[in-house]
């Protein structure tokens, strides 16, 4: 486990894709079966641990440390598993650290009541990195920035001539600890038989486009379509060896999200692979992301939910048709095939992404500013911007240069006052990085700030340090992980908040909800009383509604 923990630790800091692959391949090469197979299962999310509740872990540490010192440490570190891993009194080391396979088996075999004792024994026997990895794994909160796809790529790197797609194709038929897969990769065994009729193919991504960027490009070489504000997905379907139809819905990063959208998956009766946007449509009208968000927020997918929030795919591209790989074809060819495919299938859950015609870049800029009159009509509120693609672009994995661009709306901005701050997650867990901000309004008691949203990105790492320091120095109240920050007429911090959309909301006290709010600038120069008022946000909503 310590060796695996060391790998997780290195992966969690390593930003480079190739270096991550090398670290993992190095681990797989040096680690024997079945240990490496359990590790691969953990890396690909194929392990479901009996999840230990944070309360249990808190209980274990409370028995071993001074509660005040624990509270101060937790406040500093900001992450429970890490705090416990670091504070755990590790004086009594066992002679050997438990291997991952022992932990996996132990977790399955241990009754809930015995789990704390068992866990404590493992924690005693591990070093702090081992403790961290174990606690992260069993609380189901391990985020190391390596996708399942990357782990499979590292497995493929073990062999001389294997490609990641080879692993991907046999993957659905395999079970941990994958001894047959490693044997195949190392040339010691046959290819495991398990062709996936509905595999994931890594998607092609676009570069953001700045206004000035593309004025030098020839508009005739490009085609534009709306960038819909939903979830980019890949719908993959086909027949398995027994002739059964299999369909899956994949996220952009290769996660199987079929379980969340059974209504849609059921409708994927074709044989092929579509790249598209998952949207909620009601009576043929595209709903905004807020509506999709409401469906995503529900844990249980009930018939009532799927009826109320019917999921659809708006197709951007066709990657496979039958067994035929279309990805090498130019976009214009694939588009013709896609149009014919969608027309033939006549699937009520799948429609075609509309092409936005334009003569020159100014014309396209006008369409971007006013999607409603450029063809998006009543659906304009769900348009996030434009996708601009070269006619001749093949479907290339990753983010190739010069082929696809995304051209988003200009954001709106508001000056708001920082009111509350909360610790962030991941690499920000020891910083106050989630900010609730408010604008001025007036009620019976006079002028006051009302919270209108939360922002947790948009600032640089340096700015985060300054914001964190400001929060710590200006805390006037603490509620668990939340700090209330001084916010008076003269004392407080003004944040310029940029956002993509704004709507009325009954759920928010202020009555407004912003989309993608983020800190555009920190207005150290501005006193809080000069921040914006709620009325100006309401005016923005009215303008949007009347537009």
């Amino acid at each position, binding site marked *: 486990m310590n060796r695996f923990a060391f790998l997780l630790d*290195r992966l*969690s*800091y*390593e*930003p*480079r894709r190739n*270096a991550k692959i*090398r*670290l993992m391949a*190095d681990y797989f090469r040096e680690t024997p079966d079945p240990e490496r197979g359990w590790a691969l299962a953990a890396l690909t999310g194929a392990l479901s641990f009996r999840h230990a509740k944070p309360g249990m872990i808190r209980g274990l540490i409370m028995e071993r*440390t*001074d509660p*005040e*010192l*624990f509270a*101060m*440490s937790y406040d*500093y*570190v*900001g*992450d429970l598993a*890490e*705090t416990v891993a*670091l*504070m755990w009194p590790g004086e009594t080391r066992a002679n050997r650290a438990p291997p991952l396979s022992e932990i996996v088996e132990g977790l399955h075999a241990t009754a809930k009541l015995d789990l704390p004792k068992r866990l404590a024994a493992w924690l005693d026997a591990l070093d*702090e990195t081992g403790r*961290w990895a174990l606690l992260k794994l069993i609380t189901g909160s391990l985020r190391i920035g390596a996708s399942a796809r990357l782990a499979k790529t590292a497995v493929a790197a073990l062999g001389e001539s294997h490609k990641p797609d080879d692993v991907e194709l046999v993957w659905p038929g395999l079970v941990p600890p994958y001894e047959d897969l490693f044997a195949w990769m190392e040339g010691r065994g046959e290819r495991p038989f398990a062709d996936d009729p509905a595999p994931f193919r890594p998607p092609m991504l676009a570069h953001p486009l700045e206004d000035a960027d593309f004025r030098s490009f020839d508009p005739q070489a490009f085609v534009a379509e709306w960038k819909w504000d939903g979830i980019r997905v890949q719908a993959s379907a086909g027949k398995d060896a027994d002739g059964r139809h299999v369909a899956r819905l994949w996220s952009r990063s290769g996660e199987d999200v079929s379980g969340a959208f059974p209504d849609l998956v059921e409708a994927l009766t074709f044989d092929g692979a579509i790249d598209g946007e998952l949207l909620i449509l009601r009576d043929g009208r595209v709903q905004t992301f807020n509506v999709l968000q409401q469906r995503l927020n529900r844990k249980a997918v009930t018939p009532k939910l799927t009826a109320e929030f019917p999921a659809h795919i708006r197709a951007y591209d066709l990657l496979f048709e039958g067994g035929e790989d279309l990805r090498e074809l130019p976009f214009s060819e694939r588009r013709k095939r896609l149009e014919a495919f969608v027309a033939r299938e006549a699937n009520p859950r799948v429609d075609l992404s509309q092409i936005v015609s334009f003569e020159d870049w100014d014309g396209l800029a006008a369409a971007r500013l006013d999607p409603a009159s450029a063809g998006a009509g009543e659906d304009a509120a769900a348009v996030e911007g434009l996708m601009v693609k070269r006619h001749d672009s093949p479907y290339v994995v990753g983010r190739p240069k010069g082929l696809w661009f995304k051209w988003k709306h200009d954001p709106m901005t508001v000056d708001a006052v920082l009111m509350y701050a909360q610790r962030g997650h*991941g*690499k*920000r*867990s*020891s*910083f106050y990085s989630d900010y609730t901000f408010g604008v001025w309004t007036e009620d019976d008691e006079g002028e006051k700030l009302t919270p209108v949203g939360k922002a947790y990105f948009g600032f640089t*790492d340096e700015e*985060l*340090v300054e914001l964190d*320091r400001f929060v710590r120095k200006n805390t006037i109240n603490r509620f668990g992980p939340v700090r209330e920050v001084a916010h008076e007429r003269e004392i407080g911090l003004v944040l310029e908040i940029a956002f993509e959309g704004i709507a009325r909301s009954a759920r928010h006290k202020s009555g407004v909800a912003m989309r993608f709010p983020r800190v555009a600038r920190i207005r150290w120069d501005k006193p809080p009383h000069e921040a914006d008022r709620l009325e100006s946000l309401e005016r923005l909503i009215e303008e949007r509604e009347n537009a």
Partner: protein
Amino acid sequence: MRPPVSRPAKPHLSFRMRPEDLLCPTPRGLFCPPADAYIDPMRPVERAFVTHGHADHARPGNDAVMATPETLAIMAARYGEDFCRTRQSAPYGKTTDVNGVKVSFHPAGHVLGAAQIRLEWKGFRAVISGDYKRAYDPTAADFEVVPCDLFITEATFGLPVFRHPPAEGEIAKLLDSVDLFPERAHLVGAYSLGKAQRLMKLLRMAGWEKPIHLHGAMVRVTETYQALGIDLGETVRVEPKERAKLGGAIVLCPPSALRELWARKFPDPVAVAASGWMRVRARARQKGVELPLVVSDHSDWDELRRTILDTGAEEIWVTHGEEDALVHWCGTSGLKARPLRLVGYGDEGEADETPLEEAAEA
């Protein structure tokens, strides 16, 4: 749990001395009224006792400075020979009488020349630790326990989450990475006074025989170490145009340089940082570090507590860092303790890592 420390009788103590009569915190730093001297003053004063050469403790412009010979040499190298008007050398263990106050300097184990300052007046003994550590460091004299009545400690890493592992293991991590990525340059961000030289020495002891490459800001202080008799093997200043050829090399630089354009000219650089802060993942990731090494010049939680008990002091003052937790622990251990909340020392402990003059020298 306190070890038995025999407490000497205090025959000349005819009235009850208050620790504040000997030392009091002021905006300029800790002041000793009977000696008319400041310890590690934040602003220029007439008489300064300086614990060690780090920029937040040793500042130029004082009239008279008393410090160890090594610290005086380091200050002269950093600030120029005219960093003060008169210098008074205080080798470890030598006692000097200043207006009736017995002043002596004792090894703090922090960096070369770093000292705890012991003041004795009317039978009352105070020790100002400065920054200190007790972990192994081949480039600094070993920390010495100095029994006292009042112990003034730092608390940079004064939380139970801070436990520094043996530095040798962290060095092994660096060398493993060099093995796995032999074509990449490993840039190690480390504070240029003390930390960098300790790493160099530990690398040598781990068998690294190739030259160690140095960012310009590291060169002068490294030469001072070498002149004071610390053998660090072959060290080479990085020439800008040579950077692209340094695949496989270990390069030491100030932590701030890791994120500058300077760092990007190396072959696929690995950003390494050696600091006690690297123990907390969020701190390491926030600094964009890819290989964090937990190597610190400061005491960890266990060392702080052990040292407080070892001194036998009845009263503890905490100067800077995570003072609340340490003061709380003192309370639960039956010791009288107070936080001084001195500002200016290692702003939250991190100024030590990015001193001003490094930016200027870079």
